[in-house]
């Protein structure tokens, strides 16, 4: 498969009152054409910020300090404002978390959908509207011609998310970044949206990055999973590998804390003790070390690089950032850590 996107050593930080917040600290990954990647991590681990950094959709206080984002050879981290504007919507589409607030209440659905492509593809309003109707049909909105002339408040949450998906797809992008698109929806609608995205991916053959904090949602949907913690990637592997053979202590903890059908009613759910790392200081060691049950002396001194696992011939494409081989060392409760 051909490579679509290559991210190398991406660093993003936010300027705050007295210093910086180091949100993304050296994220590297690649994405093939047509591949679907799941990005998992707890709130504030930098998963959204790192993906938003790809198309520089960041608040003014944020800056990308280092790294390259190569989309088909074009470095988006260094592209000019107008170049990045062309990429947004025509090469990369975004689906947002909260469909209820992501549509302008003062504009009709049709007008909002068309705004981007009229600009990118120099389409006339009528052509753009036709295209918009086509994509509304595609995302499963019936009576699309009629819907184009409605305002956002006349649609339900699930419908609005479908509209948002249509909006992201309208420019026929090669990459779609979905930032927790189902978090604000109830479970049945969530399932519908997941099905829809799977279906669209097959029809349109695009690459998707799906950001979520819900590991169980990704099962059966994505090809590969990237686990993030404290602004860096801690583990990356094909989906079956992650579920069957997790190697990073944080991933192990995450998987243990998913409630399963076998969980005894009334028992406590396992959790990872401790608090998320302080990102106001530039990390000098493994960010997970303070909460890690496998912690060794080295973990508190050096940042582990993201490298293939030791027995990589048996587990291709599996990379972790950890000094410890969890298959050989036993977990023992450390001060401040319980697993």
């Amino acid at each position, binding site marked *: 498969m051909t490579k679509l996107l290559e991210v190398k050593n991406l660093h993003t930080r936010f300027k705050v009152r007295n210093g910086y917040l180091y949100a993304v600290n050296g994220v590297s990954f690649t994405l093939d054409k047509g591949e679907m990647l799941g990005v998992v991590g707890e709130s504030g681990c930098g998963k959204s910020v790192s993906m938003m950094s790809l*198309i520089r*959709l960041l*608040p*003014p206080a944020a800056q990308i300090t280092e790294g390259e984002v190569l989309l088909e050879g074009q470095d988006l981290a260094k592209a000019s404002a107008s170049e990045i*504007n*062309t*990429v*947004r*919507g*025509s090469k990369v*589409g*975004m689906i*947002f978390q*909260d469909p209820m*607030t*992501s*549509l*302008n*209440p*003062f*504009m009709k659905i049709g*007008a*909002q959908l068309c*705004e*981007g492509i009229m*600009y*990118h593809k120099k389409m006339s309003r009528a052509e753009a509207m036709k295209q918009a109707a086509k994509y509304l049909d595609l995302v499963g909105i019936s009576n699309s011609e*009629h819907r184009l*002339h*409605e*305002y956002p408040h*006349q649609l339900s949450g699930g419908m609005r998310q479908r509209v*948002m998906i249509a*909006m*992201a797809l*309208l*420019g026929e992008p090669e990459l779609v970044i979905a930032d927790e698109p189902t978090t604000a929806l109830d479970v049945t609608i969530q399932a519908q949206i997941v099905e829809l995205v799977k279906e669209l991916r097959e029809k349109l053959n695009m690459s998707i990055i799906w950001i979520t904090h819900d590991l169980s949602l990704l099962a059966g949907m994505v090809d590969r999973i990237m686990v993030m913690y404290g602004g860096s990637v801690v583990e990356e592997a094909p989906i079956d590998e992650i579920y069957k053979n997790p190697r990073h202590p944080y991933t192990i903890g995450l998987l243990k804390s998913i409630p399963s059908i076998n969980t005894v009613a009334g028992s406590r759910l396992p959790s990872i003790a401790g608090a998320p790392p302080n990102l106001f200081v530039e990390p000098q060691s493994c960010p997970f070390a303070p909460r890690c049950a496998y912690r060794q002396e080295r973990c508190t001194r050096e940042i582990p690089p993201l490298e293939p696992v030791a027995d990589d011939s048996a587990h291709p494409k599996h990379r972790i950032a950890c000094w410890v081989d969890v298959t050989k060392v036993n977990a023992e409760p450390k001060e401040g850590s319980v697993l």
Partner: protein
Amino acid sequence: MTDNTLELQQEEKQFSLAKDAFDRLIANKLALVGMLLVVFLFFIAIFGPYITPYDFLSQDLMARNQAPSWAHWFGTDDLGRDIMSRVIYGARTAVIVAFSTTFLSLIIGIFMGSLGGYFGGKVDGFIVWLIDITMSVPSLLLVIVINVSMKPRLVNWMDEQFLLTGNEFYRNTILVDFVLVFGSLALIKWPKAARIIRGQIMSVRNKNYVLAAEAIGVPTTKIVMKYVIPNSIGPIIVYISAALGEAMVFESSFSFLGVGVRPPIPSWGNMISDGLRVWQLYPHILAAPAAVLALVTIAFSFLGDGLNDALNPRQWK
């Protein structure tokens, strides 16, 4: 349910937000009264000179200080001028001043407010500082100072221009009064507009739909025109309504004190001032302009409240 009724329901749902807001405004009785009065005021201000029974300047010394009658509905003043004609012409003065002031203060306010709201940081700090300083200056004092210091110079300058160019335009020194009144009023009133616009831009700028529009590559100018401004317009419309009423009261107070529009051009303010001297003998000379001023102020305040309710999405039922 048949297809027909379904279709009908969907048709009913087709309404625009502006029409919806207008319907809500009409439903509010006080706001409706306010709006009708304001519309009537504008009508009078525009067509006044064509409907007044008498010229506002023509004196009839045989009919001085007359009480209201069929010939002079509001009576006549100490020079025998028809008070109703003068009140109607005063509406024109009030509306001209109110509109120019509000327009000017909005322009300055939009410029300063969007600058601060959009760029933030040091620019914003400077603008907030400027707003605070301007708001802390007593408005009456500022107007008097501007009037006293600027007026002679402006009049001199206009005289010179007339001598140089011979253009009739420069002989009209009444213009100086107007320019000074709304110029200085705009200087006082812009901070309020700037504050509202700054706050609106700051909040709308961080809305998800602006981010979503950025994500599909909508150009910045379009984002401002179609996303930011329509969503910030509600409070600005309310501000305009309040500011128009306020400007009329300000104009009247300044004219009352003799630093605004001066006689013989009628303004409700200088008419009240004239009436005050003789109110014990001829109360109608004072009563007519005062009552009209009070009515107009109340009308604008009703309309402003109504607009505020109608345009605030939280009030929607």
